[in-house]
Structure formats: structure tokens, C-alpha cells
């Protein structure tokens, strides 16, 4: 009870400071050159909307939304799966037996050292060309999946996330202060509980500032799946350009869509980081 008055003024002081910062941030938008820049941007957007031809949008509206949906599904599923694989990949490099650590390291080097486009093609055209030669596979229930582009795109994107995030998780696991782990051990926690209660949450907390950027990088990688016949946002707009012979407009709208997606992701992670970030 004694220390309550000590804490409370601190809290209110902090609150005041943040609201002051917010005020400053809002004020910063109204500096004269920024107003000019915003006006120029809005003006050029209005000019683009007015002067270019957008008659094709209603016709392709559904296709665009479907492509967008596919991009998002691919992004979310591949990132989550990849991240789940990245956790053990990072962990064994910090604490695992040396042969597993070496295996994880060479996996990361292999994936990070080659272009994603090549990996996608290698999986789809290369590995995919072996399957038809195996007879029993053609009759098995797996066959419809193996002839579809989805699994290849998903696996390639997932492996890429696993390798890049594995590297980040390695650093994050290694960066958790030793004292915290020792304290957990002193409380008699079994190793797995230390991992799930202390080590992993603290490591993920440390990666939060980076992960937003990584998700955006992954978003930027998803258009590559269009090269193996998957109809994502990028592929839909390529189709529109081929069918309508319009050069600029679809490209501009697509750029706008990717920009706003990246912006939303950045805001989302900014919010997450603000709520549970490490100081």
C-alpha cells in the first residue's frame, strides 16, 4: 500500500508525455511544406482518377477481390506455418546438438542464398516433373494436389519464411538475458516449461519490431507465385492488362493495392509492438 502513491504520479506523468507526443505528431502534419506535399499528392491522385480510364473496374471487380483474397490467404498461412518451423530452426542453433545446428544452418544458407523465384520454379517444374513418373502416386489421393500449383507455392513460400525467420529467431533466442532463464531454472521449471513460459515469449517479444517488416517482405514475395499459374492479385492485373490492352491504369491500381496492404501491415505491427513490445 505504501508504494502506491509513488507509482501513480509516475503513470499519470507518462500518460501526459504520450499525449503531448501525439499532439506534436498531429501538429507535424500541418507544417506548411507537408500541407503542400499532401495537396500535391491528393491532387495528382484526383487527376489520375479523372483523366485515366477506369471503366474496366466494375467488370473485373470480383476477380480483383478474389485475387486479393488469395494473396492474403497465401501470405497469412505461409507466414504462420513458416514461423512455426522457424522456432525449432532458431532454437537448435542456440542450444541443440551440433549436427542439428549444422543442419539448420545449412538449410538457412541454402534458402537464403538462392532466389525465391528459382526455388518456386525448382519445386513446381523440377520436383513436379518427377511425380508423374511414379506410378503409384498417380492413383493415390495425393494426385489432385500434386497437379495443382497451390501446394508448390505454399511450400516454397513457407520454406522461405522458415529460413529467414529461423535466422531472426536464432538471434532472438540468443539475446534473451541469461539471468531470466537461470531464474526460471531456479524455480525448478522443467526445460519445456522454461521454453514455453519464458524463453519463447521473450524471444518473440524481441523480434516484434523486425517481424512487421518481414511480413511486408513476404507480401512482396507473393506475386512470384503468379509465374506458376496461381491467380493472385498480381496475376489478375496481368490478365486485365492482356485483355483490355490498357498499360498504366491496372499497374497503378495494383501498386496502390500493394501499398495499402503494406501500410495496413505496418500499422498493425506498430500497434502490436506498442501494446506488448520490449523496452
Amino acid at each position, binding site marked *: 500500500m505504501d508504494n502506491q502513491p509513488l507509482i501513480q504520479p509516475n503513470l499519470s506523468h507518462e500518460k501526459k508525455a504520450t499525449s503531448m507526443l501525439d499532439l506534436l505528431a498531429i501538429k507535424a502534419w500541418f*507544417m506548411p*511544406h*507537408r500541407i503542400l*506535399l499532401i495537396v500535391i499528392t491528393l491532387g495528382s491522385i484526383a487527376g489520375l482518377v479523372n483523366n485515366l480510364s477506369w471503366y474496366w473496374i466494375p467488370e473485373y471487380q470480383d476477380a480483383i477481390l478474389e485475387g486479393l483474397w488469395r494473396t492474403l490467404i497465401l501470405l497469412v498461412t505461409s507466414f504462420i506455418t513458416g514461423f512455426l518451423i522457424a522456432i525449432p530452426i532458431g532454437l537448435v542453433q542456440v542450444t541443440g546438438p551440433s549436427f542439428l545446428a549444422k543442419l539448420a544452418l545449412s538449410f538457412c*544458407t*541454402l534458402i*537464403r*542464398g*538462392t*532466389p*525465391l*523465384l*528459382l*526455388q518456386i*520454379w*525448382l519445386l513446381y*517444374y*523440377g*520436383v*513436379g*516433373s*518427377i511425380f508423374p513418373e511414379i506410378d503409384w502416386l498417380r492413383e493415390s489421393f495425393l494426385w489432385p494436389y500434386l497437379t495443382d500449383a497451390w501446394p508448390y507455392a505454399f511450400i516454397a513460400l513457407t520454406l522461405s519464411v522458415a529460413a529467414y525467420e529461423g535466422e531472426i529467431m536464432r538471434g532472438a533466442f540468443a539475446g534473451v538475458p541469461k539471468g531470466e532463464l537461470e531464474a526460471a531454472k531456479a524455480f525448478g521449471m522443467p526445460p519445456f516449461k522454461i521454453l514455453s513460459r519464458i524463453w519463447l515469449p521473450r524471444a518473440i517479444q524481441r523480434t516484434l519490431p523486425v517481424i512487421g517488416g518481414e511480413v*511486408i517482405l513476404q*507480401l*512482396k*514475395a*507473393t*506475386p*512470384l507465385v503468379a*509465374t506458376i499459374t496461381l491467380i493472385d492479385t*498480381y496475376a489478375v492485373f496481368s490478365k486485365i492488362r492482356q485483355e483490355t490492352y490498357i*498499360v*498504366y491504369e491496372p*499497374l497503378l491500381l*495494383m*501498386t496502390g493495392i*500493394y*501499398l495499402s496492404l*503494406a*501500410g495496413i501491415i*505496418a500499422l498493425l505491427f506498430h500497434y502490436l509492438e506498442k501494446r506488448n513490445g520490449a523496452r
Partner: protein
Amino acid sequence: MFIDYQSMSVWQLLAFEAPGWGGTLLSGLLLSLEIAILGFLFGLVIGFFGALGKLGKSIVCRDLWSCYTTVVRAIPELVLILLIYFALPNLLNSLLSLVGISNIEINGFIAGVLVISFVQGAYATEVVRSAMLAIPAGQIEAAHAFAMPKYKILYRISLPAMLPHALPGLSNLWLIATKDTALLAVVGFTELTLAARQAAGATKEQLLFLTVAGGLYLCISLVSDALFKYFIRRSNKGQIHG
């Protein structure tokens, strides 16, 4: 002319002479490397000026550079390639026709270099900027105390002092540049990835050629990683590590 690829051995397929596709792969590799090197260097130049602009006194300049780095880092490289490959020539031609100059064409090579330096510039700006911020203020102040003019401080103190801090980021950027060249395959430019795909398509040996191309990329990555590690160790010599 019909060539029976099915009966050829791996080494015959990869031979440098005509029935083999090794020569195509190698020239693709060279093109990839050329584009990556040029793009990386131009990107560095952009990044250097970007960092100066972002750290400079002019708020307008700072905001404009921030816009550039934010926007470029948010758009997929593939979309940027399309924009520069298809939209830029049209735009340039319509501008140039106003002045009355005949049409120009942007070939795959120039477009590739443009895209990669444009993207690299945005990332390099951040790398160089944070490296410059990492220079101890005392060093710049000491230079000021010796009455060094601004540009002399820049190339005598800031640049050399910044380099050790920038090298790890630059090494990463170079690796990204080499991998980004593969994206030019999508617009039909025969660099290593597309060369491998063409060879694979002609010979029906998909796995072989794509794996070989992957191995070549991996070699580039490993060699440049080793080189950069050597330079980083060299530049860290005599530095105090806290």
C-alpha cells in the same frame, strides 16, 4: 534440326558447346552479375545522397527522401519491374515527343539496372543513414574544431568512419541485389534463372538445370559472404568492442 537430349549424359547437357546448355547458363550468370553489380553501385550512390538528405537540415528534403524509401520498400519488386519496363518507356517517349526527340527504347538490361538500383537505393539510404548516426559525435566535432570545411569532413571523416558500421548492411544488400536479378526472368530477360528455364524446357531436364542454376546462385552468395566477412573483419581491426 532434332537433337536427342534424352540420350545425352549430364556432362554433355552441361557442355559449353552447342548441343550442351552450359554456355547459355554461363552467359546468363554473367548478365545477372553485371546487373547486380551495376544496380548495387548505383543504389549505393542513391543511398549516400539519400542518407545525406535524410540527415540534412532541410525538412522538405528529409520528407521527400522518407517518401521515396517508404514507398519503394512497400511495393513488390516485381510490380516495380513492370512499372519501369512498361510504363517508363511510354512516359519518357510521350515527354520526349513534346521536345521533338525520336523514340527511345529501354531494353531489358537497362530496365534491370534501373529497377535494382532504385530498390537498392531505398534500402541503402537506411543502411548509410544509420551507419552515419553511429559515428561518435566527438569525431565530427574534432573535425569542426580543426576548421575542416563541410565536404572535407564528409570524405575525410564521415565516409571512412561510417564504413565499418555500414558493411554488414551492405553485404546483406548485395545478396538481395544478386537474388533480385532473378525477377527479370518474369519480363523475359535471359539472366541466369530464365536461361536455366529455357534449357530445362528444351531438354525436358527440369530438375537438373534449375538445380545447377540454384547451385550457381549459392556459389555467388557463399563467395560474396566470405569476401564481405573478410572486409568486415579487416575494417573492425583496432576498434574497441564494448
